[in-house]
């Protein structure tokens, strides 16, 4: 690319020249000869008026995209749920391991203080309560994930 090319490109794109470019044009016979033609091309290009898009076009696009969007929404919901479940399942072995040891120790201690069937009943009740709490916590994950996605969507809209 020569200076002449740059100057003529500037003339085409901006329609006017800065002081340096104008000085170049007045000193350069090639640019002096070309500038009239470039201005004519610029004027021709500027005369091109594109008709406005039909008002129904965007509605048509959104209509055509609706099945795709529904699929994206389903996939996004599954991804969020899978991520939440994965995050919740990672500490599960450790929690189970700790609880198992806690119950075994508590059962041992209770056995020395209470009769066998009674200490078994207490330990069993504790385990059953823990199991119910676990089930409730993990059952809440899809509900919380869905709520989070809805909030994120609303935030984005706002």
């Amino acid at each position: 690319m020569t200076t002449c090319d740059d100057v003529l490109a500037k003339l085409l794109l901006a329609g006017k020249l800065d002081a340096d470019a104008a000085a170049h044009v007045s000193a350069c016979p090639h640019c002096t000869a070309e500038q009239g033609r470039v201005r004519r091309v610029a004027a021709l290009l500027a005369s091109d008026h594109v008709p406005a898009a039909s008002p129904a076009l965007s509605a048509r696009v959104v209509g055509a995209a609706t099945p795709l969007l529904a699929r994206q929404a389903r996939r996004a919901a599954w991804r969020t749920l899978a991520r939440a479940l994965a995050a919740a399942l990672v500490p599960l072995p450790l929690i189970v391991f700790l609880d198992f040891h806690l119950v075994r120790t508590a059962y041992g201690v209770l056995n020395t203080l209470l009769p066998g069937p009674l200490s078994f009943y207490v330990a069993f009740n504790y385990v059953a309560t823990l199991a119910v709490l676990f089930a409730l916590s993990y059952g809440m994950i899809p509900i919380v994930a869905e709520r989070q996605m809805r909030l994120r969507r609303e935030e984005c809209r706002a």
Partner: protein
Amino acid sequence: MATDEDLITAVANGDGRALEELCRRYERGLHQFIFRHTGGRDVDDLYQETWLRVVRAARRFDPRRRFSTWLFQIAVNLCRDWHRRPPPEPVDPASVEGNRADVPATVDAALDARRLLAALPEAQRSVVILRYYHDLGEDEVAEIVGCPKGTVKSRLHHAMARLTRLARQ
């Protein structure tokens, strides 16, 4: 106000309203780009296909990039494919000439501009439209058309040489 990048993330999660908002923001620019690129043929179909590709690829969008650059990249690729298709059935010239008698001067000038653009090879036309009509910088045009900045400059130069030659005729 949500940025374009926020909106495309929402589109990736299936949000129809985010798509409507993006369509509203880019309707004019994108429609004009496609119209000029194809000379007004199949504009609505290409416009719709551009947005459908945007929706399909929304999850792959890199939020560090500008959405507008990505959108025009998709449109340029679609227009490129469109130009590679076999030409449509020839139109009866008599019907065209018959209509030209009552065409106003402004429409005539617009047709001249379109004829000039149509005379350019596809790669040069993209550069001229993006640089001249959309006022984009060389870097952004280079990213959209997928070539180095120097190539954008030389394409513009060659396009200009061709256009001045055509304007002389």
